[in-house]
């Protein structure tokens, strides 16, 4: 029988995006033994993903250098699938890692929201961040025609990035109406650096028209994407293209927080100003506390890292910076609210659940997420509802309420090794 060797840390940070990196670095600088655990091959999360390309964010290099110079134990390629009461388990390609912690910081980030429409399952229809991630991972897009669609500031960032990689960005289709975006831009006047950033991004993608009140209504194949139909202020036209990069802003990754029992309200983990959740010893920083972008994530990560390491004075010094960034969170939510037409794009035979090929029509017959799962099999596949369930929350008003381990599919041998209070884990590696 395998025995899992568990390493002890004062602070375990889950998620090596900006929030997690900032948290681990500050915790370590404050004298805590810190572990940073992430399922990607290297730290950086989504927004600071490296791969085969160079940096765009100057902060990325700065924080990653600090991480390298710190004494944080980085566990990359390790997918946390269970955490409970001081012990967590993470699976990597060939082994199982066990970590014992006194304090836990959840920096699990966010994923894109995908909404179904006819043809959305065709190869080369991806998320906006999804296509960017693949290009960062080596996918060449020079000369490829790309339609970017959905909602949110990510669209501009992706357009800029793809333009620089010599893609032909045909247009950027933002579903929000111009009036909402103008109101957002005016709010940003209080944050001049954000306006500058937006202008720079727009400049880098200036050849692509930025269309508001526009969204994709259908994608055509048959074997892979050949063209997209968009509705532009109600007028429908077809655009031939090679890729559709479409994402409707972000939804936080709440599965681990929910499984730990942290209180979640209106889709965000409730935290105190020191980033403490409702569960003692569990902190949360970054997107899961409210989608707020990079700067807020870095601030919250630092606050959580300091607080978890007991450096409350340092944590409190950052509180006002956080408060300022939170205003942007509220403004973004308003600006990029999803219009109701997006819930009407799917036809009865359009697939909602891609893992199990369950149609929108079959899922919609039910009155709750749980009933839909049981009776239509929607959400019973390996993505555990991350795609279809999030869409269903918008389409039907359901809530994906419960979360049980494993929060990602793992080998059955890994499942066997999860810990419980009645099954105390052996401690190795020093600290109590």
């Amino acid at each position, binding site marked *: 029988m395998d025995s899992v060797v568990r390493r002890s840390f004062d602070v375990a940070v889950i998620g090596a995006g900006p929030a997690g990196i900032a948290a681990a670095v500050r915790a370590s600088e404050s004298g805590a033994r810190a572990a940073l655990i992430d399922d990607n091959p290297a730290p950086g999360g989504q927004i600071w993903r490296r791969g085969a390309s160079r940096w765009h964010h100057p902060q990325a290099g700065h924080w990653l250098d600090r991480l390298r110079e710190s004494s944080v134990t980085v566990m990359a390629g390790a997918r946390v699938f269970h955490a409970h009461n001081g012990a967590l388990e993470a699976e990597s390609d060939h082994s199982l890692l066990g970590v014992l912690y006194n304090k836990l910081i959840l920096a699990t980030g966010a994923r894109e929201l995908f909404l179904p429409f006819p043809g959305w399952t065709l190869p080369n229809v991806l998320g906006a961040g999804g296509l960017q991630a693949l290009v960062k991972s080596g996918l060449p897009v020079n000369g490829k025609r790309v339609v970017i669609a959905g909602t949110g500031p990510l669209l501009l960032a992706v357009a800029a990035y793809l333009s620089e990689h010599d893609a032909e960005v045909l247009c950027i289709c933002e579903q929000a109406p111009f009036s909402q975006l103008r109101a957002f831009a005016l709010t940003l006047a209080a944050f001049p650096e954000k306006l500058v950033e937006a202008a720079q991004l727009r400049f880098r993608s200036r050849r692509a028209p930025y269309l508001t009140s526009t969204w994709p209504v259908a994608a055509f194949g048959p074997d892979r994407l050949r063209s997209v139909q968009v509705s532009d202020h109600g007028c429908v036209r077809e655009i031939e293209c090679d890729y559709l990069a479409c994402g409707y802003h972000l939804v936080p990754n709440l599965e681990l927080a929910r499984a730990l029992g942290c209180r979640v309200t209106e889709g965000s983990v409730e935290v105190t100003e020191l980033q403490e959740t409702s569960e003692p010893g569990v902190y949360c920083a970054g997107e899961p506390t409210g989608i707020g972008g990079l700067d807020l994530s870095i601030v919250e990560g630092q606050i959580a890292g300091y607080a978890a390491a007991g450096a409350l004075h340092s944590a409190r010094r950052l509180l006002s910076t956080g408060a300022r960034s939170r205003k942007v969170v509220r403004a973004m939510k308003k600006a990029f609210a999803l219009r109701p037409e997006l819930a009407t794009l799917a036809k009865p035979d359009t697939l909602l659940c891609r893992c199990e090929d369950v149609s929108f029509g079959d899922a919609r017959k039910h009155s709750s997420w749980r009933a839909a799962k049981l*009776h239509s099999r929607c959400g019973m596949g390996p993505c555990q509802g991350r795609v279809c369930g999030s869409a269903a929350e918008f389409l039907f008003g359901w809530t994906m309420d419960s979360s049980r381990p*494993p929060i990602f599919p793992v080998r*059955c041998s890994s499942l066997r090794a999860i810990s419980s209070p009645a099954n105390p884990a052996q401690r190795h590696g020093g600290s109590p």
Partner: protein
Amino acid sequence: MKHSADVLIVGAGIVGAACASELAKAGLRVTILEERFISAGATGAAMGHIVVMDDSEAQFSLTHYSETLWEELHEELPAKIEFDRCGTIWVAVDDEEMAEVGRKCDFYRARGVHAEILDPQSLHDAEPHLRAPLAGGLLVPGDSVIYPPAAASFLLEKAIELGASLDTGKAVISLEKGIARLADGTTLSAGRLINAAGQFSGKLTPGIRVKPRKGHLVITDRYPGTVRHQLVELGYLKSAHSSTDDSVAFNVQPRPTGQLLIGSSRQYDIEHDEVEPAILSRMLERTFEYLPALASYSGIRVWTGFRPATPDKLPLIGPWPEDPTLYIATGHEGLGITTSLATGKLICSHILAEAPAISAEPYLPSRQRVAEAHV
């Protein structure tokens, strides 16, 4: 007073659904009251194994009768029920268990159930992924597997087509003397009431001795063709029959999707439905002892459910002694899916005062009252 219905059934699990279907067929006006949604209880968590059991004559009689009913129905079952007559193999690890296989085989054959003893080679040919060497097994080809929530829905749809009505989101707080009192303050009346509330039946009818018995299950990603039959260890009955201890027993089912459903565990006196690592661990460990390859298979979901269990392992099917309007249909432990159809028939026989196809005596709820009186 005009009744809301001829029969009010509490519980839209597979047992309530089977009762509804039979009673509606008999021309009665049926209303089903369900607190949550169809198969929200044990039916939604269950393994869906249709199996003939030999642990007692009464258990055999009920499971065999019900299995015959599933056979009669199977051609009518829609695809979503995923009916598959894959058969069961009871797996033996040593000579003692092989002796048990021999006894079991004789028992089934003497009662007209086809069974075939497998030697180690035949067992390996039938199920190449089982660890070798094992002592052999017993193949019961007439057993099947289904997807229980779809079966419950189907039976309810049939009842509704015949005039029954289903009200979900209706919690019933008392059920007696022809009246169902709902949590929202309303009352409904009927000539007959049926408590088919599964793990909650004891709360609804004080005096019923039904305890929830927690079980864990794991489902894997798709690995088509790796397991062909429902595989159960012979020690399963020891686990099912223990009255006190937590236990696990090897029990794996191939789904038509190619996914493997892994069970089984039993615990008493646990109220919360959280996944418990210690017993999950034991259950998986037991599984790997028989199917080592499963250790590397991707497990995509773990869940728990509560079987309604009675002290003597037999369900409660029939009239409740103190109340001429009340019938009980619960306590099926791990055999609810199999015996649901027979339960529907027996309940119908009771209500219509017709002779049942099998003796209804061993399952009479009154036996619990008698036992109490003698204490």
